[in-house]
């Protein structure tokens, strides 16, 4: 994105790329694919510009040629069963083990009361760990929703083309002027699932520059960026991270 892309174009591409790679497991893999798709978009746009297509139209047409985003998402969702096989095998093994443990427990329960209770406590502990993990995943989903909120707000602030699919009906964090970079941040017991690692966003005018806004598991680093003076007023130099 080193070329003189209009900011709104970059934002439109980014939203598409985030969505298109949402089925890919692993942040690093998804990021690599986004980089590849972005390089493709650049290539198409460059050819269209060479053919005399106006810049804004070239960006939009490049995106059009990528095709329906849902089709790309579905295509990236690996249909091969072998990747699910280990999960299924582990699940089957756990089920078999659970049945065996239940049988043992019944026997133990009948013979020794104390040991039976201990076995029950272990089972309860396992259920607790499982529930905790599920809750942590849920929290990670919220983190992703947080990022999408911020992106939606950025779109609204720049009067870029609306992206209704990214607009959850909740208020958003305030932004500082300039370009914001949302970065995932691991916190204690909250493992992040696949989330957009870096989301570019534009600040709402009027907020202090260089502000750092922290969400539950997201951190928003705001820094000024060079953009068209016609659409965006000049912003002060960065004041830190």
């Amino acid at each position: 994105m080193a070329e003189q892309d209009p900011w709104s174009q970059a934002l439109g591409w980014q939203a598409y790329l985030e969505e298109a790679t949402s089925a890919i497991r692993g942040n690093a893999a998804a990021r690599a694919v986004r980089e590849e798709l972005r390089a493709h978009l650049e290539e198409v746009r460059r050819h269209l510009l060479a053919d005399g297509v106006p810049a804004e139209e070239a960006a939009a047409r490049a995106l059009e040629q990528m095709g329906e985003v849902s089709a790309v998402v579905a295509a990236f969702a690996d249909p091969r069963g072998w990747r699910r096989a280990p999960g299924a095998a582990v699940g089957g093994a756990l089920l078999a083990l659970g049945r065996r443990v239940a049988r043992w427990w019944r026997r133990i329960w009948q013979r020794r009361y104390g040991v039976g209770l201990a076995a029950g406590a272990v089972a309860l502990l396992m259920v607790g760990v499982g529930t905790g993990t599920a809750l942590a995943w849920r929290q990670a989903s919220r983190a992703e929703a947080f990022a999408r909120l911020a992106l939606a707000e950025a779109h609204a602030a720049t009067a870029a083309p609306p992206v209704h699919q990214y607009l959850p009906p909740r208020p958003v964090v305030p932004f500082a002027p300039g370009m914001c970079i949302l970065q995932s941040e691991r916190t204690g017991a909250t493992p992040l699932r696949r989330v957009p690692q870096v989301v570019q966003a534009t600040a709402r005018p009027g907020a202090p520059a260089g502000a750092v806004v922290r969400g539950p598991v997201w951190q928003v680093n705001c820094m000024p960026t060079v953009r068209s003076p016609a659409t965006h007023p000049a912003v002060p130099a960065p004041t830190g991270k």
Partner: protein
Amino acid sequence: MPRPASPDGYPTMCLALLAEGPAHGYDLVARLAERTGAAMRLPAGLVYPILHGLEGEALVKAEWAEGEQGRRRRVYTLTERGRHVLAERTAQWERHRRAVDRVLLGGWGVGVATHG
């Protein structure tokens, strides 16, 4: 958009194009459209999942390379295994095509179909 009759059509066509030499995604899309007379215009977004799938099967390998003006591109190259699979699939396709020709053209798949 017309689809190849074989479910492996697009991946196989990608393998065939890569058999001519390493290429990146954009190049493959353009060459596919050109070769098929734009009859098969695969949306660019779908080329990459196909290529990544082929890479996962070790039929192609990919590496980032710097193009003109420092632009980075992921260039795909056919592997030996990919070449072998391409030969197999091409033979399968040929058998499939002949069988369909026998039904549609009424002969033995040789000659030119005439309409009307």
